[in-house]
């Protein structure tokens, strides 16, 4: 296997822990409701589980990537401009993946774990998927390999993107300077993304650059008069790890096996989360429609 670049996530872990400890102390002084013991334990154990899942499946994804690289269109090496382009393309691929992860139940089943906390703090950032490999989330990055960017370069860019997204999971930072908020993803933008308020629902899918949301019409600014409420539409009401990791997959399995009709079965797999054949459940669109109709703030 060709030589890999160093994994920046390994170097970032001590900083993650230090920042969590600092944020906890800030919460202790300012707002003790920002952290809760069982929630933090759940988030960190889900993060550990995700690392284990990644260790088990990561080499398969890397092997597939190198195999696919044989069919690349161009032979782009480690030239300086390729680093800039690969960061941009990887971030765009992340935006597309992330939007699909909220709009297609199959991908949502894998991603929901990250939104399952009703808290929004740095430990929430570590609440990552266990089933990303199974849901084929990595497929969104494969076109970049086919273009001809070196696989280690893409893996490095994805790791940097992941590290960047850690610090934006906090209520301890209000807003960054205006130029920063205009271009980059920030705690303010990402609080909106994690909120279940109808106004904020399914907005701000950005990884590092908020420009994609601005370009594709999915941007929503955080308002001072509307505090985000975090979690999912039907909050779990449980700190069970396995339930947090697999509840949507179990929901899919139940729906697909009990509801008749192939069209319904396919829709329970690939339609928007909350879709139902009898209209008895809510999608983000129906929630927003009800909210607009109600005239609530």
């Amino acid at each position, binding site marked *: 296997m060709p030589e890999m670049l160093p994994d920046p996530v390994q170097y970032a872990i001590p900083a993650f*822990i230090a920042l*969590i*400890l600092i944020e*906890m*102390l800030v*919460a*202790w002084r300012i707002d*003790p*409701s*920002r*952290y*809760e*013991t*069982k*929630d*933090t*334990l759940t988030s*960190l*154990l889900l*993060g*550990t589980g995700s*690392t*284990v899942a990644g*260790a088990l499946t990561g080499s398969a994804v890397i092997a597939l990537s190198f195999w696919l690289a044989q069919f690349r269109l161009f032979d782009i090496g480690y030239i300086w401009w390729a680093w800039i382009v690969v960061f941009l393309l990887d971030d765009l691929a992340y935006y597309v993946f992330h939007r699909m992860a909220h709009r297609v139940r199959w991908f949502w089943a894998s991603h929901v774990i990250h939104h399952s906390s*009703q*808290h929004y703090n740095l*430990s929430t950032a570590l609440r990552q998927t266990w089933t990303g490999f199974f849901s084929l989330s990595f497929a969104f990055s494969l076109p970049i390999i086919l273009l001809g960017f070196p696989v280690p370069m893409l893996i490095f860019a994805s790791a940097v993107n992941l590290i960047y997204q850690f610090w934006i999971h906090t209520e301890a930072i209000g807003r960054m300077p205006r130029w920063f908020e205009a271009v980059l993803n920030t705690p303010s933008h990402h609080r909106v993304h994690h909120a279940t308020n*109808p106004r904020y629902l399914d907005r701000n899918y950005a990884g590092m650059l908020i420009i994609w949301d601005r370009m594709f019409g999915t941007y929503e600014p955080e308002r001072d008069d509307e505090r985000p*409420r975090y*979690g999912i539409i*039907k*909050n*779990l*009401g*449980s*700190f*069970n790890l396995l*339930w947090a990791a697999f*509840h949507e997959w179990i929901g899919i399995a139940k729906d697909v096996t009990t509801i008749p009709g192939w069209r319904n079965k396919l829709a329970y797999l690939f339609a928007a989360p909350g879709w139902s054949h009898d209209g*008895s459940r*809510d999608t983000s669109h129906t*929630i*927003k429609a*009800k*909210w607009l*109709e*109600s005239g*609530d703030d």
Partner: protein
Amino acid sequence: MSWLVLTGSLGAVFAVAGLVWLLGLGKSPGIADAKHAMQLAREAQSGFRPAGAVIDAKGRAALVRGNNGEIILVRPHGAQMAARIFKSAPAIEREGGRLKIATGERMFGDVMLELDEKDAKHWAKRLEGAPYA
């Protein structure tokens, strides 16, 4: 990932969670009054118009009735709140003022409300007759 790294990670995880506990962060919130319960129900269900509520004597849960007769159950979950809107009549057990509601979800669990007997009777009847979809 080696066993040593995994063991070390788990040790760090429990240490951080232990510190949250030692600092006393995230105390479980109670439901203060009917107004609070109705606000929580509105936040839980878009377009929900609360018309009345009853609170457990210790603020551990509440039932909120909408203006169309639908009912939402609210209870604390850690330092936050979790809610369920009933789509069909839940199984209820009433013993005097104690009203036990089975949500039908094993992970969410059953919820017990301590009410005065008159309220318990009244809300049990409401739950049985709500307009379920």
